[in-house]
């Protein structure tokens, strides 16, 4: 009797050992993959920094902002142009920065307004049925290829916007902002919805128990509680808008001008990289300049996303009290 049970015990322990081995190897497999993925991101970052700082070997920091041109008749002229194939080449990043902000900020404002409304509706007002219908649709919207959005904006929205606002140029920053908001609205709506739903039911109940109406609950209890999450959603939407390439490349007109005219054409950082990186010879002045503006964009979105992450963290702690 005894030896037999001992034998069984041994069996179970080998099974356990075997199981343990599989478990361990999976653990290591995943760990190694995780490390590789993390390292890759780090290397991309280092590579970008490395290429971006080399721009200083070719272009002085002030020439990245303006270039002084000698003009026999009118004295010195300060040129704020981005025109790398010109003679002399001009690498002012100012028009590109302006262009990026002039498309991303209006897009973000439009989307924040509409996205918030949609998010509040989804979380607080919509019935379970309409919510289950709308939420997946919104999530599908975030996945539409941006070239399709750009094309539709160009073919359908361009003439419409020109007719409504009477703009001189058909391709302008506002049109790009409208195009961008089609991909930013779903992001903001979805994240706002998540933020509001993370608020425990007790808080809503407490508010109703105090005699507050639904509108009062939403405006004075829920939104202030979720404000960090909502701000984070807007920030994430903004970083998506500023990094977006295809839509602005197609509809913004790509004219690198110094102007804050919402109805004029602009050229964004992302569109400039997309349009010009394919043709530059590697290790040229122009190549490093493009890497530099790419690095700027990268740092910018990184900071915004970091801020959004911090806000979400704060929100979580607030709700979990």
């Amino acid at each position, binding site marked *: 009797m005894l030896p037999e049970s001992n034998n069984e015990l041994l069996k179970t322990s080998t099974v356990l050992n075997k199981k343990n081995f599989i478990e361990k190897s999976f653990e290591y497999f995943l760990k190694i993959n995780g490390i590789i993925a993390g390292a890759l991101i780090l290397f991309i970052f280092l590579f970008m920094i490395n290429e971006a700082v080399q721009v200083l070997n070719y272009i002085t920091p002030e020439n990245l902002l303006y270039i002084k041109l000698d003009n026999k008749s009118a004295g010195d002229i300060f040129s704020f*142009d981005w025109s790398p194939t010109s003679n002399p080449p001009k690498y002012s990043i100012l028009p590109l920065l302006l262009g990026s902000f002039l498309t991303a900020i209006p897009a973000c404002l439009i989307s924040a307004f509409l996205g918030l409304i949609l998010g509040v509706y989804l979380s607080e007002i919509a019935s379970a049925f309409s919510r289950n219908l709308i939420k997946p649709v919104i999530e599908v919207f975030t996945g539409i290829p941006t070239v399709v959005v750009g094309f539709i904006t160009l073919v359908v929205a*361009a003439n419409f916007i020109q007719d409504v606002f009477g703009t001189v140029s*058909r391709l302008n920053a506002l049109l790009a902002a409208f195009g961008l908001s089609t991909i930013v609205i779903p992001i903001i709506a979805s994240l706002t919805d998540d933020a509001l739903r993370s608020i425990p039911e007790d808080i809503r109940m407490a508010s109703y128990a105090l005699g507050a109406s639904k509108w009062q609950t939403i405006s004075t209890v829920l939104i202030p509680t979720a404000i960090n999450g909502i701000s984070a959603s807007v920030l994430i939407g903004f970083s998506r808008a500023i990094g977006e390439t295809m839509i602005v490349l197609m509809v913004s007109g790509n004219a690198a001008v*110094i102007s804050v005219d919402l109805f*004029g054409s602009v050229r964004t950082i992302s569109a400039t990289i997309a349009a010009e990186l394919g*043709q530059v010879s590697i290790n040229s002045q122009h190549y490093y300049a493009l890497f530099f503006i790419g690095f700027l964009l990268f740092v910018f979105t990184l900071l915004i996303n970091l801020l959004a992450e911090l806000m979400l963290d704060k929100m979580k702690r607030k709700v979990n009290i």
Partner: protein
Amino acid sequence: MYKNKSKINTYTFGLFLIALISFAIYSCRVDNTVQKDVIRIKGSDTMLNLSLMWAEKFMQENSRTSIQVSGGGSETGLAALLNGSVKVANISRSLTGNEIQTALKKGVEPVANMVAEDAIVIAVHIANKIDSLTVAELKKIYSGHIKNWKEVGGDNKRIILYGREKSSGTYEIFRNSILNEAADSSFIDYYAGMKVLQGTAAIAEAVANDKFGIGFGGMGYFASRKDVKVLSIKINNITKAVSPLKFTSLYGHPIHPNNYPLSRKLYCYTNGKPQGDVKKFIDFIVSSNGQKIVEQMEFIPLTFSGE
């Protein structure tokens, strides 16, 4: 509700798997077919449609060869030829001495094969009153010194400029032969407010939609359109305005910079003399069949260009 959701997820996952498997099977099927010889061509957007037609007709006759054509601009094509990723680069201008030097340094010997001629046309919206411009006016318009149609005899409206990316051969030629036609003056650049579009087709589309727009590009994209007007160009105030459309083979006129300042030759650059399949393809292009396609696509065939 959660149960439901997980069910949906299982279904989606199942669908995804099915799609993945069918894709895998499909790609295997392709891999098993007879190996084809592939000629990759890259370069000028102006020549893109033309090259596609050539490739299509050529592949009908030579089913063993497969030709892949892509655009991106002349400089993109040159870069691809230099790094060896394509056998043929479509370039809508002749290479500069500097470019040839760079190529030789990289061990590539660019050989020009002239395949067609083209005129860069200036196009405006069909409702525009203007019919012709002088070279000097064009220069002022594209460098931003004339901003209103009124100044060249049109409506009192802002001129909306459309142009191409810096990688485009058309961009270079237009800059050299219009903006910087007077060699002694200092370098003149495009007006920064020029809208930069990706490809000549996009410019044709933009000009067709913009009542006060003006754009330039290869003749093939504008000549047959009913919604744009191709302008005649005057070299100066004394000479007659010349329309580029008159230079199609129907008229048989030789195209010459003295008549129309924006003519150019189109090239297929190869690394060394074309050989094997590439030679066959180039021979096809310059044959009468190939040149017939040139005419169909609204470019100027070599045989008719005289001189």
